[in-house]
């Protein structure tokens, strides 16, 4: 059994911080080296599994197209994330205030949570037009909606009884209660939902590109490159999409941290 003691010395703390950064990098480098080794020494066909070096090469060669594709997909994901989050928060607020809405939305939300994006893509393209990015944004929005809704609803239910009593004691108006207690309590939950939604938004926006609409995004270019067996280029676009996903994740993580700062023990 590993007994981790709660207290740590300053030097130990510093070592921990360093290790926390070094360990994942080390794992990453190990994988990359192993990968390169597989390709260049063992000789796994470079054709199917391009070497990291080849990917980097392609990444540099097609850098302008990487950037523009990332921007297109990123914009779709961002818009979807924002719209989905706003809808999620609003609907959660309504559901929190009125139970029947909560019950009524349950099957719809559950369905949205399990529906494969590919199933909706063609239908949404028909409904909203294949010539605009809206279909993808809608898909990213739907994907974001679910976690934001669920977490926000939970957040609205977290108000402590003692806080509720306190507000009643102060004869606070409902607007005051929402402003001083309900919203601040829910905020960390909302941001947790948004963080979870961020990765989903990117992936969904990207996958939706496989199913029609204007070209130029990451998903379309991954498929085009792969279809002409330009696997190194396809991987380079995959790398770009990972970077995009990471940016979304880190940005929303930072937001979440910001929203919960100064209340570790709330």
């Amino acid at each position, binding site marked *: 059994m590993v007994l981790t003691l709660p207290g740590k010395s300053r030097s130990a703390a510093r070592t921990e911080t360093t290790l926390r950064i070094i360990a994942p990098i080390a794992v990453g480098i190990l994988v990359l080296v192993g990968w390169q080794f597989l390709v260049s020494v063992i000789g796994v066909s470079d054709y199917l599994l391009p070497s990291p070096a080849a990917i980097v090469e392609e990444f540099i060669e097609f850098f302008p197209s990487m950037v523009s594709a990332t921007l297109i997909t990123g914009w779709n994901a961002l818009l979807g994330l924002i719209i989905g989050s706003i809808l999620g928060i609003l609907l959660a607020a309504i559901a929190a205030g009125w139970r029947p809405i909560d019950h009524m939305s*349950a099957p719809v939300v559950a369905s949205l949570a399990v529906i494969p994006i590919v199933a*909706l893509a063609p239908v949404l393209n028909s409904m909203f037009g294949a010539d605009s990015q*809206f279909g993808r944004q809608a898909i990213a929005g739907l994907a974001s909606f679910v976690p934001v809704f669920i977490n926000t609803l939970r957040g609205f239910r977290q108000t402590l009884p003692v806080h509720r009593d306190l507000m009643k004691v102060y004869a606070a108006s409902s607007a005051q209660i929402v402003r001083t207690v309900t919203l601040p309590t829910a905020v960390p939950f909302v941001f947790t939902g948004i963080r979870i939604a961020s990765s989903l938004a990117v992936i969904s926006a990207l996958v939706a590109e496989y199913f029609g609409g204007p070209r130029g995004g990451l998903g379309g270019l991954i498929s085009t490159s792969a279809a002409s067996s330009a696997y190194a280029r396809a991987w380079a676009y995959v790398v770009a999409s990972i970077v995009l996903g990471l940016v979304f*994740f880190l940005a929303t993580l930072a937001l979440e941290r910001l929203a919960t700062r100064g209340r570790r023990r709330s």
Partner: protein
Amino acid sequence: MTAENLAPAIRRRRSAPARELVRWGYGVLGILVIAAVWELYKFLGPADGVVIGEARVLPRTTDLAMPHTWDMVTRLFDPVSRSATANPLWLEVALAALVTLGIAAVGWLVGVVVGFGLALIMQRWKLAEWGILPWVILSQTVPLIAFAPIVRSWGSRVEIGAFEWQDWMSVAVIASYLAFFPIAIGALRGLQSPDAIHTELMHTYGVGWWKTLLKLRIPASVPYLLPALRLGAANAVVGVVVAEVSTGMQGGIGRILIQYAGQASGDPAKAWGPIFGSIVLGLAAAGSVAILGAILKNYRRVEINA
């Protein structure tokens, strides 16, 4: 402090049926409301939707874009095609859904094994947690669809003795890729959930990591694990459908999804059959984890919001 402790248990047992009924009632009402809104909008909305600036913010209302809800439902009971031997659509969808469900179950199991294994490693060694966890999180930003052909191709090389890699296995692998993530995270949180008081108790009993794992950490992880397993099941279904589309595997719901989408110009309602099918499928998969929850109910006496 005392009576309240007992209350939740009693509450659950006593009025469960009545409350369930009300819940279901509202649920059905919710679906009806959606259908009504759909039809109402279809009736009132402009054929080309509502366009603000460049963006069409509300959909088109043509039969092509928004078939009537009753058409979607009745289409389910019509034969798939004019062919003499054609099954009704719902049967075709159901058969495909079963295939998909089977593969999803395999993918889910693999995801459980991998996810739980990773969680164990991460729990055992802090260094492993620091090294692996960021990559586990990062893995979810990787568009899995990009890997479908590669997985299939790698798989097709696996041939050990009488064992030969099948296409559905590639699909299951991709499903497990989606399923393992929530399970790894949930299991890790669960394995780390015991209070210091409990781990120290085990320490005073002088038992090692394995016994602590068996008697304390694994049972304590159940409340965290169950929602993770449920999420994993839903993800596995999504993964199978995506991978079926992407690898062109036959027999599953992903396949008929694109097939019927291809016929949506002339038969718009048909495309909704597999969509409904995949929703039911996802709900069934997630729901079957609830059975597991019922079996393990004694391990969930402390319910957790995960």
